[in-house]
């Protein structure tokens, strides 16, 4: 049983197709990188898989069942820039939002939820900032709060949209440690990633995406110069860099 199976997914914004016939299968208990240039449709892919935007065609199966958000097996870390950080709330409150699916309608988070949320903040090294207004956190700290919120969802599969963008080196290390920990617990983690230099270090499996899936599979066999060529087109500066990155063999 695969955690995620996507078949023939097509998504369009105002008739302009952004993803075309995307199909892939995600192996269980692995760290998976979703790689592609800006505008390749990486965020769109995550949102369509999670049912946040409508699909034109296609099917998404999570553990062999058609995916419905209510099943609460999937956690989500959006791009940090997707929310207004001036919103009147503190770090703990944001993490508690991860519990809302478990709490149910009309009820308020209880003591247990708060303990769990504090626990999640601790896992990302943010326990001292629980009552800090979110606009007063640094970019890296905000990203950690988003991660803690996803942990609070207590899911089996995690989707994270560019968690490493705009964070300091310490946060990047903390995040990758956390991802490996999740993997150790048998969870499946899909991460949209930008920095090609770290792909080989971070991920077991990659999906190269640019409107279509260019290639997918274990990082070793898939993250090749030829496939990167196809994914990124003929950006020369990049290709020179790509030679250094991928062409070690």
């Amino acid at each position, binding site marked *: 049983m695969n955690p995620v199976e996507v078949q023939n997914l097509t998504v369009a914004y105002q008739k302009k197709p952004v993803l075309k016939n995307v199909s892939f299968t995600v192996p269980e208990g692995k760290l998976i990188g979703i790689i592609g240039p800006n505008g390749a449709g990486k965020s769109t892919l995550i949102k369509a898989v999670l049912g946040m935007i409508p699909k034109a065609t296609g099917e998404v199966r999570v553990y062999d069942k058609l995916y419905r958000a209510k099943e*609460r097996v999937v956690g989500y870390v959006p791009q940090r820039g997707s*929310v207004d950080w001036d*919103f009147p*709330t503190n770090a703990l409150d944001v993490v508690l939002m991860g519990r809302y*699916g478990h709490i149910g309608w009309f009820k308020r988070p209880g003591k247990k939820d708060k303990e769990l949320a504090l626990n999640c903040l601790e896992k990302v090294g943010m326990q001292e900032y629980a009552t800090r207004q979110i606009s007063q956190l640094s970019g890296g700290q905000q990203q950690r709060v988003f991660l803690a919120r996803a942990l609070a969802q207590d899911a089996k599969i995690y989707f994270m949209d560019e968690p490493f963008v705009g964070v300091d080196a310490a946060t990047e290390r903390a995040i990758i440690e956390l991802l490996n920990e999740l993997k150790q617990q048998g969870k499946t983690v899909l991460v949209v990633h930008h920095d090609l230099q770290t792909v080989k270090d971070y991920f077991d499996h990659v999906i190269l995406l640019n409107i279509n899936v260019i290639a997918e599979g274990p990082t070793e066999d898939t993250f090749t110069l030829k496939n990167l060529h196809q994914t990124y087109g003929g950006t020369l500066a990049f290709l020179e860099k790509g030679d250094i990155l991928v062409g070690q063999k």
Partner: protein
Amino acid sequence: MDDVIKISLADANTQWVLLGTILLGISSGVLGSIALLRKQSLIGDAVAHASLPGICVTFLLLGEKSLFPLLIGAAISGLLATFCIQAISSYSIIKEDTAIGLVLSVFFGLGIVLLTKVSQSSVGNKSGLNDFIFGQAAALVGSDVKLMAGAAALLTVITWLLFKELKVLTFDPEFAKGLGLPTKLLNFVFLTLLVSAIVVGIQAVGVILMAAMLITPAISARYWTDSLARMIVLSGVFGAISGVFGTIFSTFGTGLATGPFIVVTATFIFFISLLFAPERGLLTKWVKRLRLNKRLQHELVLRKEGKSYQ
């Protein structure tokens, strides 16, 4: 003038009027703070203006000025306006702010035309229909206030019940959807609550200034707190205070339209908040900077002196 106020405040009808404006202040303050954070203040303005044709059409159909049906008419044309705004911005290249401006002026223009028609026609007793433009709290009678009280209480209770859902929907709508919340339904529910809060207020504040009642208490409240729950409560309190003082000033001082006085009071509260709020207030910031400068200068002097001794 003190005597006048005392005498009038003892009057049962006056107490009804005051209660009415307090309640509308609370409901518009509460819904307004969520609308502000959802960046829907402009939609609120459009809805308020767009309720005018609904009021006129209902009056023409019924031939009498009975508040409940008039408010239903107002709500229908207000919702219709939000529907038009959404349709225009999603099915054409026109952006939302332009669509809002367009719908607001078309509906309001239509409302004014209908209002002119009403005053020329021979239908029933049309006195007081003009009050919907700038608001006339004094025109409220006991039964009206009971209706407003019921509506305002209901709106506040629903908002309280849905607090957690509205919070995540406002902060991070995509995450809310990922949690499995029916975000489309919630959006619609919130819009209905907002339209209802507007409709409850137009009798006393008027269609032109109603949006100010949604926005001003909410912005003022934001200055004092970093917690959403406290912001909503405070905004309701500011709304209620504006309602009371606006009504007192307009009714007993001058007998003029209530809306402008309520809004002026709300604006006064805003300026107080802007200047004196802890943390965010301008004066507080200014004092802090002054202290910091002094300390820096002090340290600089010390350092210089230290150097001159070497």
